[in-house]
């Protein structure tokens, strides 16, 4: 049979348990807005009862510790979606910037082509009018400038994306070092125990890393995480991290190397790094090639039409545009070769010979180039490609965003701190603590009563 002391010990275990649980509640409330914090629950366990004869006495309660409530599978899904999300966000913001150059603004290539075509039509009715001739020259100049501006817009989007690569890689290296360190700390925690704060920090760091590049995460026995890139290049193994490096290779191609110097660019698809690489190495060069082809073929076709006629000075038409000899630099380099309106080859049969060649000059704008498309259609197809790429990136970003919101909601439903729940718990533990302390004080009164039994004097 248990004595009063048993009741006292059970009461004290209740006090301890309530106090520990209050600690958990208090920590949860304190961290309600901390990113990456997972709520803690006090693990309370009933103590083994003791038997004495036929009598069974309860053993009180033990606080086994505080357990963080997390769902590893959800974490992994969130990491994957975060990688995709930041890749499309990076692409979307670059493309948004690029498409401004292809939006009808009055200074874009489309508007300049419109003005150039109109100036030639006007010239056909006023071929001897120097204002109409100057009009053609100015419109040609604007068209060349529009090509230059668009090309430099594309180039700066590419440079910006290229510059983002080393920045992102240094963030990746910093995070992998941090993760390796946290892995080391987790290795000290017994496997059965919860990693608590360290694990929260690890999850948070891995989450950030997933936003920077696509990664594959494997849990190790020690509770740490092995992290590799998409193609299995190790980034973190145990407490060791491996740094990535970057550089610009031949053809202005941005490259990423692993710690052994091996080129792993093609394996990187997600995160800010994947997005930047895609913009710098694929998207912008694709648009640039189309733009250069257009600039070069258009200049050649127009110069040929110009060469077919005679200018007002009686000379064979000189090249109208120049600077497109190097295809890779055609759009950036195109400029006006003519310096005077009198050099426009208006006549098709000698000096002062009518305006027969104006129709040829106009036709150069509506005749298919070697690409199979007219200059206008060729430009329209670039507009279509830029528009589609931007719209796809935007749509994808929204879709992944929705998905991610849902996953975050799910994760929140498992791990986030609910103030109402914590408040209710606080009241619960408060009551329990009050009740347990009442036990202790009651036992003390009973002890006194027992000691005073049969004694004249009271203790």
């Amino acid at each position: 049979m248990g004595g009063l002391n048993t009741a006292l010990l059970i009461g004290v275990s209740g006090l301890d348990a309530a106090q520990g649980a209050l600690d958990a509640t208090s920590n949860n409330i304190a961290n309600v807005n901390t990113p990456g914090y997972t709520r803690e629950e006090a693990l309370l366990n009933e103590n083994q009862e003791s038997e004495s004869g036929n009598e069974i006495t309860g053993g009180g309660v033990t606080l086994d510790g505080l357990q963080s409530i997390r769902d590893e599978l959800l974490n992994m899904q969130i990491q994957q979606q975060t990688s995709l999300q930041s890749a499309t966000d990076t692409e979307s913001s670059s493309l948004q910037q690029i498409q401004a150059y292809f939006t009808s603004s009055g200074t874009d290539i489309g508007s300049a082509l419109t003005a150039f075509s109109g100036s030639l039509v006007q010239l056909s009715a006023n071929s001897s009018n120097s204002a109409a001739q100057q009009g053609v020259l100015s419109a040609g100049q604007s068209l060349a400038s529009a090509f230059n501006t668009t090309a430099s817009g594309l180039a700066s989007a590419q440079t910006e994306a290229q510059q983002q690569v080393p920045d992102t890689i240094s963030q990746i290296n910093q995070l992998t070092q941090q993760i390796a360190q946290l892995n080391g700390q987790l290795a000290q925690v017994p496997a059965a125990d919860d990693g608590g704060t360290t694990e929260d920090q690890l999850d948070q760091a891995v989450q950030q890393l997933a936003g920077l590049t696509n990664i594959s995460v494997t849990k190790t026995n020690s509770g740490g995480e092995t992290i590799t890139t998409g193609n299995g290049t190790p980034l973190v193994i145990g407490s060791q991290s491996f740094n990535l490096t970057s550089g610009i290779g031949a053809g202005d191609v941005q490259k990423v190397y692993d710690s052994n110097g091996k080129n792993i660019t093609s394996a990187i698809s997600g995160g800010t790094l994947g997005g930047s690489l895609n913009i710098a190495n694929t998207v912008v060069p694709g648009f640039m090639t189309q733009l250069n082809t257009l600039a070069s073929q258009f200049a050649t076709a127009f110069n040929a039409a110009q060469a077919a006629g005679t200018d007002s000075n009686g000379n064979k038409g000189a090249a109208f545009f120049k600077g497109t000899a190097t295809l890779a630099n055609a759009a950036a380099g195109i400029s006006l070769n003519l310096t005077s309106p009198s050099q426009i080859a208006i006549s098709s049969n000698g000096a002062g010979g009518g305006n027969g060649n104006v129709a040829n000059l106009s036709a150069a704008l509506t005749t298919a180039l070697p690409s199979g498309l007219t200059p206008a259609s060729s430009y329209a197809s670039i507009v279509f490609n830029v528009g589609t790429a931007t719209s796809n990136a935007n749509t994808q970003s929204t879709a992944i965003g929705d998905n991610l919101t849902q996953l975050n909601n799910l994760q929140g439903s498992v791990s986030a701190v609910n103030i109402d729940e914590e408040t209710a718990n606080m009241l619960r533990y408060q009551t329990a603590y009050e009740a347990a302390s009442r036990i202790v004080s009651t036992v003390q009164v009973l002890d006194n009563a027992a000691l005073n039994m049969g004694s004249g004097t009271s203790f």
Partner: protein
Amino acid sequence: MRIDPNMVPEMLANLQQSQSLLDTALQEVSTGLSVNEPSDNPTAAASMVQNTIEAGDLDVYTQNVTTALSTVQQAGSVLSSVVTSLTSAVSAGTEGANGTNSPADLQALAEQVQAILTSVVSAANTSVSGSYLFGGTSTATPYTANPASPTGYTYNGNNNTDSVAIGDQTTVQINQPGSQVFSNATNNVIGSLSSLVSALKGGNPATIETATSGVDSALNYVSQQQVFYGNAETQLNSQETFLQQDKVTLSTQADNLIGVNESTAATDLSEAETDNSAALAAVAKVLPNSLLNFLEPPS
């Protein structure tokens, strides 16, 4: 099941979405366009490149038609006046050839025809805003007096013609050189008038008759040349109608591609406004709510 207690991210996402819808609706209403950048509708944006160029050309074609029409009409009316002049020269010649005229009468007739010749030459030298109607493409005065020439005048222009673009792949020739109209090898208007003047001065009725029939055939020839300008005028007028229709077609196409239906846009805007206000009201109402608000403050 436990639910996600943190409503802030979702509320912010909802707010952001309703604000972006509001932005889009506002932009559509204020610009009147549903496609403001290529990503709004890549196909429409691409089609608009061609549409804008065609619409731009169309405006200039219309200007060209107006300019060409005025040139052609002026040339036509100059030729009409030349026909009238030649008709009176033929009457003068016929009168001179009847053999009953005194030398003084013949002299008077010769002076009359000389005056007609001068007026025809001045008609042939008509210029419109600095360029000559019958000088080919030359900028020199087409006919100048030249005593050495058998006709008394030299043609200084060239044989070229100008064609004006009035549509895609459509041009119209707007002039005929003076060498064709006034000093043609077979029907030389100026030459025949000069011959008539000389014949009248010479007084031989047979010569006068031959010269008169020369002027008569020149008269027929000029009448035929009028047809050229008449045809050009008809072509220009029908092209003007076509261009007007084409402009309507193009602007309808543009409106279908990137225009916005005003009533839909207005409805979208008011819907977006309501959504946005509702989202804001919900945030304001829900966020401050918690169990703590209902607990007694600790005594």
